[in-house]
């Protein structure tokens, strides 16, 4: 199986700790981590914090994708919008989005709002760029055909340009998805009072390392599975692309 090396790594982990080669204080055994994780799920704050993270990440990402896609298409379709918004996008693209963590906290404090704003601002750019490129590359012939068949300009946007831009938007959204995880975890680690990132820090400060490891692994693998799931979904939805 392709993922066999990971299984081997897990076995080595367990063995190394059980054999006493590494101190339990530094590296809890895999079995301890699993037990602590299970306890957290059953009776700990995992679900409350998980819900907070999910809400923030989901809301921020949804806003980023919807508004980002619309902005990108608008920029590609109307020159005036491109002239106005284009320079903004260009100037902001190279800036690392995590640098916005302190300023969102300044504006909205330690709660959900700052995280949602951060993810929205940070994740919008890849989607906008994808939508822009996707809409631009939409064949002129397709647009003209639709117009000649009686569609209004706005209808053409919805019926022809948007679907044509979908593959690129999907690509941008994939980047945005991974970025949203990074921004969410980063901000929750540093400036939060709830959420999975906060939970990791909290457990760490409390010295409950096996539970901390458990949450770290859960969060890391959530990021991995989200990406895989997204890929599967997009392959299905965009099957017409061949």
């Amino acid at each position, binding site marked *: 199986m*392709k*993922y*066999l*090396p*990971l299984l081997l*790594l897990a076995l080595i982990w367990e063995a190394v700790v059980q054999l006493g080669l590494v101190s339990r204080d*530094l590296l809890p055994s895999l079995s301890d981590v699993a037990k602590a994780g299970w306890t957290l799920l059953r009776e700990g704050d995992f679900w409350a914090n998980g819900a907070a993270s999910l809400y923030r990440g989901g809301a921020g990402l949804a806003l980023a994708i919807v508004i980002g896609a619309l902005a990108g298409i608008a920029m590609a379709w109307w020159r005036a919008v491109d002239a106005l918004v*284009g*320079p*903004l996008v*260009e*100037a*902001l*693209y*190279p*800036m*690392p989005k*995590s*640098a*916005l*963590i*302190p*300023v969102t*906290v*300044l*504006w909205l404090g330690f709660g959900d709002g700052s995280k949602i704003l951060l993810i929205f601002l940070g994740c919008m750019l890849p989607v906008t760029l994808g939508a822009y490129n996707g809409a631009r590359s939409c064949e002129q012939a397709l647009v003209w055909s639709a117009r000649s068949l009686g569609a209004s300009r706005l209808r053409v946007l919805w019926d022809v340009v948007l679907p044509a831009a979908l593959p690129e938007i999907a690509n941008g959204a994939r980047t945005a998805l*991974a970025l949203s*995880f*990074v921004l*969410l*975890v*980063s901000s929750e*680690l*540093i*400036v939060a009072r709830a959420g999975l*990132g906060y939970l*990791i*820090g909290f457990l*760490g400060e409390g010295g409950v*390392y096996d539970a*901390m*490891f458990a949450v*770290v692994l859960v*969060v*890391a*693998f959530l*990021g*991995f599975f*989200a*990406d*895989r799931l997204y890929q599967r979904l997009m392959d299905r939805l965009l099957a017409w692309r061949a």
Partner: protein
Amino acid sequence: MARLTLRFAPWIAVLALALAWELFARSGAVTPFMLPKLSTVLARIWGDAASGELWQNLGLTLYRSLAGFAVAAVIGIGLGFAVAYNRVMRWLFDPLISVGFPMPKIAFLPIITLWLGFYDVSKISMVVFDAIFPVVTATIAATLAVERELLWSARNLGASERELLREVVFPAALPQIMTGLQVALPIALIVCIVAEMKLGGVGLGGAMITASRFADSPGVFAGIVEIAIAGYLLVRVMARVRARLLAWHPETEAPATV
């Protein structure tokens, strides 16, 4: 005239943004706390530069990011070659790389802190962990893509296996490896800054988070501008290095930054 505009277009964008910022801040639509004037922020940066604080923070952040980047580059390229050439290495590392890539690796910072403490080593290690991925994947792809006719020609002309790696594979793979390095550098910078935000202390990240704790709005915005400029300069330097090393390459193009 059109050529000139094209060349300065990014600058026009930045200037337009700067102007919009200053005007919007002056308009009174938002409080100076929410959005300090650009002039205030720039004055603040100037002040920090004069007092030496800017250089202290910037210097430390650059030291940590570049050290991490260098380690990631060396280990990443070496690992990339090993994985491309050795079937066992490939079997071992392929799943690690494909699983690790989409993970928010910053989540491992508390573990790294547990193992390595709160100082430079842990920050640099976090940078290495994050930055190594694009380097390894680029190196593997580049090595596997070297045209076999190049290798055959070299062997035909008398090259030994070891000479092949050094004299043919490495230069042939270099363009794509450079691209991987160009992607890794901004990652190194921002991961370092996030780690600094978490662990505090001296550095651009630490300074920014302290500023936000003291509700020092100009300080926070100054940090953003400093990071943006630092990131931009690093990218430009990399582009120059690439142009120099790859002068022979038909398409010398820097990739978009993250």
